[in-house]
């Protein structure tokens, strides 16, 4: 994906992809006329550059340029190799809808703890990152994850503490950064932490960036309660109803406005195993922190 910082127009960024000479995924983000921008994106989707570029070039709106003209300039820079293609911030979207799931985090290479989590009476188990850890059996955990087809997102350890086997390293490297699934009528988003914003493909205006920045940068993972009023106001713009995250080794559930925030702590804590049980029952979300004795 290419991210172009615009000059002289309302949207601060344009995102797009090039598949050879085919233009895809055009998004004008962060401002401007959303309706017109979406129309332009749809009209341009999947078209040849030779067809598109003459249409975009030189259109004037303000400051001697326009959204189409800025897109023209961005594509030219990309073709000349002057605009770097960024690694996409990947999202796993679960195809099924669930009623009862378990969410864990910080497995830290503990195969026994992961086996306990996988035995829980739920439709699916999701992991919010750090399958691996500094002193864990990282290859053992990754191989169990691969066998059981556990859905997980990357945590920082998964990027920096690779397994010894190349196929396990590659498996971790290709893991998504965001998790999206449906629990009844509840739209759920999961991620490990704000480390995602350090990656080169991150944009403030990409899908789910708002939710991530509100959790990590504004509220300091719900620890800064003085900003809860502002956080609640911003939830009006969220695209999900439940935000799950890890990273602080704490367990917390807060509801602000119509959005639930859940901080998921480590899978093994003291001599116990812990996870979050999420259920959609009676047309509402039910949350409980479950403990299993070792």
């Amino acid at each position: 994906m290419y991210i172009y910082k615009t000059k002289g127009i309302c949207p601060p960024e344009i995102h797009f992809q090039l598949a050879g000479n085919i233009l895809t995924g055009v998004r004008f983000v962060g401002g401007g006329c959303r309706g017109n921008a979406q129309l332009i994106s749809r009209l341009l989707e999947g078209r040849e550059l030779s067809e598109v570029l003459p249409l975009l070039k030189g259109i004037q709106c303000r400051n001697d340029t326009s959204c189409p003209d800025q897109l023209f300039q961005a594509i030219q820079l990309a073709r000349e190799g002057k605009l770097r293609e960024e690694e996409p911030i990947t999202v796993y979207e679960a195809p099924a809808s669930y009623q009862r799931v378990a969410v864990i985090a910080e497995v830290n290479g503990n195969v026994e703890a992961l086996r306990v989590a996988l035995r829980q009476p739920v439709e699916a188990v999701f992991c919010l990152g750090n399958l691996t850890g500094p002193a864990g059996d990282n290859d053992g955990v990754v191989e169990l994850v691969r066998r059981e087809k556990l859905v997980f997102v990357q945590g920082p350890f998964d990027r920096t503490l690779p397994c010894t086997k190349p196929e396990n390293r590659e498996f971790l490297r290709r893991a998504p950064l965001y998790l999206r699934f449906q629990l009844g009528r509840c739209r759920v988003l999961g991620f490990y932490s704000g480390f995602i914003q350090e990656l080169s493909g991150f944009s403030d205006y990409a899908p789910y960036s708002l939710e991530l920045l509100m959790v990590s940068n504004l509220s300091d993972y719900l620890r800064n309660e003085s900003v809860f009023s502002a956080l609640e106001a911003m939830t009006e713009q969220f695209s999900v109803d439940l935000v799950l995250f890890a990273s602080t080794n704490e367990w917390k559930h807060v509801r602000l406005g119509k959005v639930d925030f859940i901080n998921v702590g480590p899978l093994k804590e003291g001599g116990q195993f812990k996870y979050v049980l999420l259920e959609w029952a009676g047309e509402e979300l039910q949350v409980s922190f479950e403990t299993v004795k070792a």
Partner: protein
Amino acid sequence: MAEAVKALPQEIRDIIEVHEWDMRTREGIKRFLELKAKSLPSIALDNELVFEAVIPPQEDLIAAIKARYTG
């Protein structure tokens, strides 16, 4: 909030410089925390939070500006 500022009379707009911060961005959140703001929307004058969680009536905003920038 920005609309309230844009609607100020020209003689007031001539004596101030307006910066609007977008809370969806890292830069906007950073500025919000620097100002020790707690609610939205907020207006600061010279790095001091003056209006919070409210869009002030135009006369209040003008009075706050004049108190700082006019003799």
